Every structure is written in C-alpha cells, then in structure tokens.
C-alpha cells in the first residue's frame, strides 16, 4: 500500500511541477508543502531536528542548567527522599549522578534478556540522544531538617517557602526534599530522563509533584541579536537578567562564595527558588493594552521601557522619574528591581518556563509561569524581591499556587565525583572517590 501511495504522489507531483530540480524552482510560495511531498513524508513521520546531538557537560565547579542558556523545554520534579542513613544518601547521590551523567552524554542502554523488562523506556529509541539535556539537583530545607546528622550542615539561608500575601498555595504542589530541574530541547527528552530516574531510584525517592513548561522558539535573527522569550502574558520575560556569560558577575549574583557565612561545602552552589504562578489569561486578554503596559512597566511589542528606548535592552532611568510619571512606581519591573547601587545586592538570575495544564473547574485555561531563579543569597535575592512585589497591581492577574526553595549543591568535578559529595564529607561521612 505504502509503495503504491508513494508512486501516486510521485506521479501527481511530476504532472504538476515537472521532475526534480525544474519542479523545485517553481512556485516558491509552496516550498513548505512541496518539501514535505518531495521527501515522501508521511503524516506520522517523526518531526526532524538537527539539535539532538547538542550536549552539555555534567562536570564542573557548578552544576549544569543554571547559567546554561535555557532550551525550549523545562520541568521541575519534586521528590520525597527515603534515604536516611549516610550510606543510603550516598547511594542516592551516586545513583542519581550516574543516571544524569549517562542521560546528558547520551548512548546505548544495556540490552537485557527479553524475558526481563528493558533497561530503558525506549521512548527516544534504542540510542538515547543528549538533546541538550541538563538535570540540576537541588535539596529542600526538609532534607536537612529531617536528618539529625545533616541538620548542622544546612545552608545558612535555606528555609521552607512561606506564603506571600497573594499566594494560594496548594500543599500538593509545594516544597520537597529534593528537586530536579530537567531541561532540554524537547519535552520528550525531559520525560524520558524523569522516567529513567524514577526507574533507577524506586527505593530512595518518591515523586511528589512535577510541572513541565516551555518557551516559544524564535527564528535566528540575521544580525545574531538575542531576544528574551515571551511569557503567557505576551511580554518579554528576562530582559533585565544579568549576563550569564560574565563569570565575575555570576560569582557575585549566583554562586555561593568562598569565605562567606555559608558552610564550606556549599561553595560553588546556588539557591534555587521555584514558583508555579498561575496567570488569569482570559482576564489579562480583556485588559486594555495601556493598562497592561503600565502594570508591567514595558512596551508589549518591543519590551522597551517607557519614556524612550526602542528595545528591551534599554534601561529605564528611575532617578529622573521619582514620581512615577513615566514608569509607575508600582510597575512590576520597577518593584522587582529598583536599579540603585543598593539594589544590586538583590539581583537574581531567572530561568523560567511557561506552563499550560488544562482547564480549571470554571472552564478557564490553567496556565502561567514556572518561575525558576538562582541566587547566591536566597534572602537578599528572591525573598527580598518578592517582598517588594507584594501588593503590585499585577496580583489581580496572577496567583502563585506552588513551588519551593532549594539549595543546588556544587557540580561534580569529574567522573569519579558525584553531586552532594561535599555535603557528605562535611557531615563526616567517608566518601571514596572511584571511577
């Protein structure tokens, strides 16, 4: 049947367009349709990507997935950890690191006897592509609090997320002992990774909640310029993010420093704040454009601040606007970042995704922002920024419903190392480096 169908298609194409190159020179408006036909594409053919071999390194002073440019698909999965003893926690960290190393590298899972369940879900095929995957491991406050031998080593600023005034937190979407941030080029790669982790650690951790997200993909710009992705409110999100390529800046804003007030084992790690923020998009779409732009503090089309500038990279000068006549004093971007010398201490590195989950009981879209940010000091970072935002006019259109605070340990140095080793050593647990 398939062969016959192909012949039919070929014949029709030959009649319509002539054969081969001559045909492809015709009717440029039909390029896309014809390209599919030319390759003999079938409805259920897998979409093609030339990015499946993109690969990030698991090893380094810092974990991957923090200053790594955000790919199109992301997920946070939060777990309850059952490992209690140092030995079990070590097994958890080692196994997790081993799986992450394999998944980020890509490769062929072992072939088992077909009387046994397969080693891999197989959803990406017999050879697992890296597809730009990163998996970032972070630990919640309860991970330390619930283990006497770890409690003294808890990062100094790690706390359990408290509800802000506009929050309507759902206990089933909050907190966790351990969180994985999984991001890659496709949702399927993230799901594959999550299923691999679940299958390999069934006795040591149990999944509590997860939230997947994505960001809209843009075509490359001819001049190579970068633009911030848009959130589900239609505004650019991330315009004022600090430059992740600036290592000195990241040392200041993102990474726990040496000789600070934090336990030594945390050096090179970072605090992760996660928030699931529902957006009332129907209502937002029924809000006058001028009001939307006043609430956010930017022009919707370009992302430029009010009062001059053509791009999102232009910087508003609040010192010339003390009354808020240009950018309202309660505009989101103004409350989030005062742009003073002092407020530099409150900078955070955002890495959010948009999420869309289905339909609420009221028949409205359940969608919003899977907000993720990293900072060297959770209190000066997210907690302070959120406090500044409390009461902002945007609250009428958003409702945080979940999330949590976590600490992201430093990265594994090499193949003999694993995430969490420095913590175990600090707790007096003898760790043998083996390759």
């Amino acid at each position, binding site marked *: 049947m398939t062969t016959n169908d192909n012949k039919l298609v070929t014949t029709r194409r030959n009649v319509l367009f002539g054969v081969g190159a001559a045909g492809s020179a015709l009717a440029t408006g039909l390029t896309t349709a014809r390209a599919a036909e030319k390759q003999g594409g079938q409805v259920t053919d897998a979409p093609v990507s030339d990015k499946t071999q993109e690969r990030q390194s698991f090893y380094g002073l810092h974990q991957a997935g923090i200053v790594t440019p955000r790919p199109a698909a992301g997920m946070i999965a939060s777990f309850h950890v059952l490992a209690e003893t140092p030995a079990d926690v070590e097994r958890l960290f080692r196994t997790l690191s081993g799986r992450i190393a394999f998944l980020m590298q890509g490769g062929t899972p072992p072939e088992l006897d077909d009387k046994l369940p397969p080693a891999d879900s197989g959803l990406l095929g017999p050879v697992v592509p890296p597809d730009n995957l990163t998996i970032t491991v972070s630990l919640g406050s309860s991970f330390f609090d619930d283990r006497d031998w770890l409690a003294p080593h808890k990062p100094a600023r790690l706390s359990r997320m408290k*509800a802000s*005034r506009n*929050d*309507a*937190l*759902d*206990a089933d979407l*909050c907190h966790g002992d351990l969180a994985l941030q999984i991001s890659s080029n496709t949702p399927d790669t993230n799901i594959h990774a999550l299923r691999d982790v679940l299958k390999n650690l069934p006795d040591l951790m149990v999944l509590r909640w997860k939230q997947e997200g994505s960001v809209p993909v843009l075509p490359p710009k001819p001049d190579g310029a970068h633009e911030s992705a848009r959130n589900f409110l239609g505004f650019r999100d991330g315009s004022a993010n600090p430059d992740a390529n600036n290592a000195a800046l990241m040392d200041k804003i993102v990474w726990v420093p040496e000789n600070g007030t934090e336990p030594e084992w945390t050096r090179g790690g970072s605090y992760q704040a996660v928030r699931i923020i529902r957006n*009332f998009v*129907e*209502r937002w779409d*029924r*809000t*006058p454009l*001028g*009001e939307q732009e006043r609430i956010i503090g930017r022009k919707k089309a370009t992302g430029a601040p009010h009062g001059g500038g053509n791009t999102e990279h232009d910087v508003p000068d609040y010192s010339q606007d003390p009354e808020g006549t240009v950018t309202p004093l309660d505009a989101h971007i103004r409350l989030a970042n005062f742009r003073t010398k002092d407020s530099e201490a409150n900078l955070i590195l955002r890495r959010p995704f948009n999420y869309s989950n289905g339909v*609420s*009981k*009221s*028949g*409205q879209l359940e969608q919003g922002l899977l907000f993720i940010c990293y900072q060297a000091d959770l209190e000066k970072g997210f907690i302070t920024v959120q406090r500044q935002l409390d*009461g902002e006019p945007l*609250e009428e259109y958003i409702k945080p419903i979940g999330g949590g605070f976590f600490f992201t340990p430093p990265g594994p140095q090499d193949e003999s190392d694993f995430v969490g080793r420095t913590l175990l050593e600090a707790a007096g647990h003898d760790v043998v480096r083996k390759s």
Partner: protein
Amino acid sequence: MKLKLVLSVSLLTLAAAALPRMANAEVAPLDLVQPIADYKIYVSENLETLVTDTKAFTDAVKAGDVDKAKSLFGSTRMSYEAIEPIAELFSDLDGSIDSRADDHEKAEKDPEFTGFHRIEYGLFTENSTKDLGPFADKLMADVTELNKRITDLTLPPEKVVGGAAALMEEVAATKISGEEDRYSHTDLWDFKANFDGSRKIFDLVRPLVEKEDSAFVTKVSGNFDTVDTTLAKYKTADGYELYDKLTEDDRAVLAAAVNTLAEDLSTLRGKLGLN
C-alpha cells in the same frame, strides 16, 4: 455633607485623569460625575444592608442557632457580592472576609482562613457553631471596618466603570464552577448579586454609551437578560435553589453569557475615555 465633598473630589480626579486620553470625544468627563455619585449611593446602601445582615447572621452563630445561621448565609453575602469590586480595593479585608480555603496552604485548617467561608464550613460541613464565635466577631468587626473605610473613600471612576467587567471576571474565573460556596452550595445567590452589581454600573453609564454605540448597549442588555431569565428558573420563595440543581445546559448558558459580558464590558472604560 460628605457626599458633596466626594463629588467635588471626584470631579477633580476626573478632569485631571480622563481628559487627556479621551477615546470618545462625545463623552465629556463631567458626564461621569453623576453616574459615579449615584454609584456611591448604591455602594453605601449595600454596605448598610451588609452591616445589618452580618449582625443578624453573626448573632445567630454566636447564639448557637445553626439552622437560623444557615438560612441567613446566602442572603447576607449578597450585598457584599454586589459591590465586590469596591470591597476588594482593601485587599486585607477582602482576604479576611471572603477568602476561600484553597487560598491557604493548610486549607480549612489554616489559621489564616477566616470570614464568611470559614463560618460556612463550620455551619454546613460540621453542622455546628462550635468554635465559630471568634470568627463571627472577626467578621462583624471586618465588615464594620469596611463600611467605615468605604464611606471615607473617593471612588476612582476607572475602578467603578471597570467594576462592571471585574464582577464578570470573578464569576468566570472562580464562581461558575460552584467552588465559591462549596459547603452551602448557595452559589446562585452570589451569581445574582454579582450580575446585579455589574448591571447597576452598566445601567448608570448606559446613556453615555447609547448615543455612540447603541448596538453595544443592546447586546450587553441582551446578555444580562439571558442571565436573569436563566437564574429566574431557580428562584425559590426565599432565595435560590442549591448549586447542584443547576443543569449542565443552564450552566453552559450562564458561562457563555458571563464570558461574552466580560469581553464586552472590558471595553466600557475605553468607550468612556477612562484609562
């Protein structure tokens, strides 16, 4: 005395805020002064009723009269729901008077969960007034405080006019599902009050819009009528049927009317030249 003062302040606010960005040259800012003043009276009347009704309701709770308290719950809320866009200007009070269990991480057990729905939970789910005394006192105090604050408030014109749509957004986002009064299922009382409150605003500014866009006025009125006709089917001697009596078809009719009203009324501010 007070009304006069409010009027003159409103006038100034209007003249300053609305004039430069008029989208509709036919509606002069001064035209809005009377509707806003009339709305302020509507709000005051509702607040007066709210205080009186809340007193009777909380007295019944404190007297341990479960049946009486239950019977007063639906009607007591109506004057609050009718003026919700104004009541919500004070988010601290709105939270303590009208928040729902799912606004709080520990749901019904959360100490921050107070107000109408906390008492509703005790009355209808636990069928008791046990431990409700402090919640009743707090509700009465909050409602009294709300009345005081709003009496002293100059109503911002854009909030008043925007309130017509805001009420529809409330129904569309969180009420049409029957989640609001989940223990008592008196949601249809709330619907009625929300629609009446929205229609009141629309009716007050209607003459200003009618000249320019009579088709719009006809369409909006038609949708309000659809809602009234649908809700009327569920009218009882002393109020409304419980939410679970609402048929799937009627629920869809209401949802569509709410969404259409929300879409149309979201243009009302712009039509009146308000930011």
